[in-house]
């Protein structure tokens, strides 16, 4: 038995973290999230793609690295840890999985290859399938699509959009096609982008197998949930590190605040909550690739549990920083907001838990 990340996985993970630490410090994140004209984001995205982050899950025969979900989760942890201004989960986790499970040979050849070469970048909009709000609905008929998709992941940088209707039928449109209207949404976390998309009789390339069963969409959502959970895991760990470090430096009443039991206990509680999450996320990722029958339930657990734990940690870690935590100076809020939005991507925890109960026929 060996429960944990392999040397390769750790090595890759550290490379991503190191890249972000070197290239994408707080000032960089501040610029990217506040100045829409800045080209820094492109620089970071290119750097991450150069590390191969775009093709982790793409099978080798289509030019990818052919790695497994645990590898992907390990990378997500690093991205969350560095609040990377990079939308990973939609384009590079959910999209390839959907095509692997739902696409025809021709579609795989076209899209997976393009994605591995980064000439195709896919925005992903599955929110209607998970739970439609504000009348979001798309209709797919005779290879045409019309309607409205909400909270689409990374449409902004996309060449293509992968969309699902309520039944889980998935299709792909080109982002600049006539009849596609992409409107930016502003979420409290600006390190990633979210959009609303209007479609008016647009050509859509439907992934054939998705008309027969829901494998592709459920696999894709499971993968996305594990990836987002891992992102929150990494973000939470970084917040704990920051809080502990700060508590050893900051002095009040003539002593470092880390010497107060109240502060120690906040830190110890955060760690006690988070440590089991490593195992949960890794286990879920392992199941995704190697123990498919347990995979759906495990990914629900990972997503909903990490949503709760990370929310608590984002509050406590801010509190340890006192007034500094509330200012922009220490940047704690970037992690707070990342965690806040992760909580709701691909289903708020209440909805995901309901799903977990249904999966078990409760």
């Amino acid at each position, binding site marked *: 038995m060996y429960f944990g990340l392999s040397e390769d996985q750790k090595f890759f993970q550290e490379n991503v973290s190191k890249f972000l630490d070197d290239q994408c410090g707080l000032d960089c994140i501040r610029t990217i999230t506040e100045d829409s004209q800045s080209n820094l984001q492109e620089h970071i995205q290119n750097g991450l793609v150069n590390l191969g982050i775009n093709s982790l899950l793409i099978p080798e025969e289509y030019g990818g690295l052919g790695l497994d979900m645990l590898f992907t989760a390990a990378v997500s942890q690093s991205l969350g840890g560095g609040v990377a201004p990079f939308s990973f989960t939609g384009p590079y986790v959910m999209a390839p999985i959907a095509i692997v499970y739902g696409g025809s040979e021709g579609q795989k050849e076209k899209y997976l290859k393009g994605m591995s070469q980064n000439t195709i970048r896919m925005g992903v909009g599955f*929110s209607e399938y998970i*739970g*439609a*709000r*504000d009348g979001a609905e798309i209709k797919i008929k005779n290879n045409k699509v019309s309607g409205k998709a*909400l*909270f689409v992941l990374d449409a902004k940088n996309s060449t293509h959009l992968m969309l699902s209707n309520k039944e889980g039928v998935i299709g792909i449109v080109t982002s600049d096609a006539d009849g596609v209207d992409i*409107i*930016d*949404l*502003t*979420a*409290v*976390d600006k390190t990633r982008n*979210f959009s*609303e998309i209007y479609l008016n009789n647009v050509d859509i390339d439907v992934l054939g197998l998705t008309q027969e069963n829901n494998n592709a969409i459920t696999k894709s959502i499971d993968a996305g949930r594990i990836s987002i959970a891992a992102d929150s895991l990494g973000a939470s760990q970084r917040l704990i590190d920051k809080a502990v470090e700060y508590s050893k430096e900051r*002095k*009040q*009443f*003539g*002593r*470092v*605040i880390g*010497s*107060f*039991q*109240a*502060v120690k206990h*906040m830190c110890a509680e955060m760690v006690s909550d988070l440590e089991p999450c490593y195992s949960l996320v890794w286990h879920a990722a392992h199941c995704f690739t190697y123990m498919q029958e347990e995979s759906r339930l495990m990914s629900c657990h990972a997503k909903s549990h990490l949503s709760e734990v990370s*929310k608590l940690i984002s*509050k406590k870690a*801010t*509190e340890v920083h*006192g*007034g500094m*935590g*509330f*200012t*922009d*100076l220490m940047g*704690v*809020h970037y992690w*707070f*907001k990342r965690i*806040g*939005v992760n*909580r*709701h*991507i691909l*289903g*708020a925890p*209440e*909805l995901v*838990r*309901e799903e977990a109960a249904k999966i078990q026929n409760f």
Partner: protein
Amino acid sequence: MNLNYGSEYDSFRKEVKDFCKEWKGINFKDQAKIPIAQNHESYGATLTRSEWQSILIEKGYFARSVPKEYGGFGGESDVIKNRIIASEFASEKIPPAMGGQGIDMLVPTLLELGTEEQKMQYIKPTLHGEMIWCQGYSEPNAGSDLASLQTKGELINDNWVINGQKIWTSTAQYSQMMFCLVRTEPEAQKHAGISYLLIPMETPGLEVRPLVDMTLKAGFNEVFFTDVTIPKENIVGKRGEGWAVANATLGHERGSLANPNAMMNRLNELISRMKEENIDGVRLIDIPVYRDKLITIQSKVTAFQSNSLRVLSSKLNKNQDSKLAGMIQKLVGTELRHELEGFAVDIMGEMGTLYEDSPHLRDGGSWQFLYMYYLGLIIGGGTSQIQKNIISERGLGMPREPKVQGV
């Protein structure tokens, strides 16, 4: 137990109800884009808000017991009437009088400890929203340990000359005046060396630098003092008594950070939201997990509101003791409000995370804003951890943590 205020209050309540009916739906020109907490929303007020303030004072719905010569209504102090006003205003969504640190903290301090000249000079414009104040207490190295503050004041030729720095000074960028704690007796023991000074913000040598906070608003500031010179008379209390003067009003701040009526109002807005919003066509209010959580929070808010009634009652009845019920208010109130706002974000899902001027924004983004803002208030005005120290040590008489040397 008797929850009736007494029949003498029936006619007063009716009068307030009529007033609310008359003003229902009023709006200000200077409404903040993102509405913030009731007590804070009128920072940086303009004329229209001042006019509202004057109307309220004239009716006796605000500054009731402040003497007329200082710009108040000049009535007898009546906590029950205040309570009636607050609850009627809240339930009819009539904007309450503006609050802020001048009104909530400085005015009570001056009434208690100010000189006649100070009362005459400052109270009226403050109550009318024409003079905004900020609180210059915290410093980079003096937050929870406020008494270690180092900003220095020296008496030179009948003037105070001030040098040093404050931080986290809310609303300093809009303020005309600051009430400030300054170390004037460097030889004295920590708490005994502080004075409470009143400083015009326009004094040369005083520089305000806005600080962005996590809500992305510059809600507070750094304030730098370089030979800031003010008249000797601008002191409240005596030299070296500033700590006691400040403590006389810290209680006022802590009370005002968590207003139970505002919270109940907010809860009712949330309930309306839950009836309007749906997911897959099912109203949020019909979804069992959300219903359960809503009622859990409603229980807490109701308990908190009742708790404040009990605190009120103990002010009216000598034989009642509600010391602990009073002490827990800042801790419980700010934590609960943060929970409530966070729950609202939660039920709205992805849409709850939208912010600023995003399409599909709900209620001006106020839920997400206040979820963060109340985390700030959990920290500001004495952190939750400090509140727990106070409750256990002063409330429960538990021994203080031993002093640890040189950690």
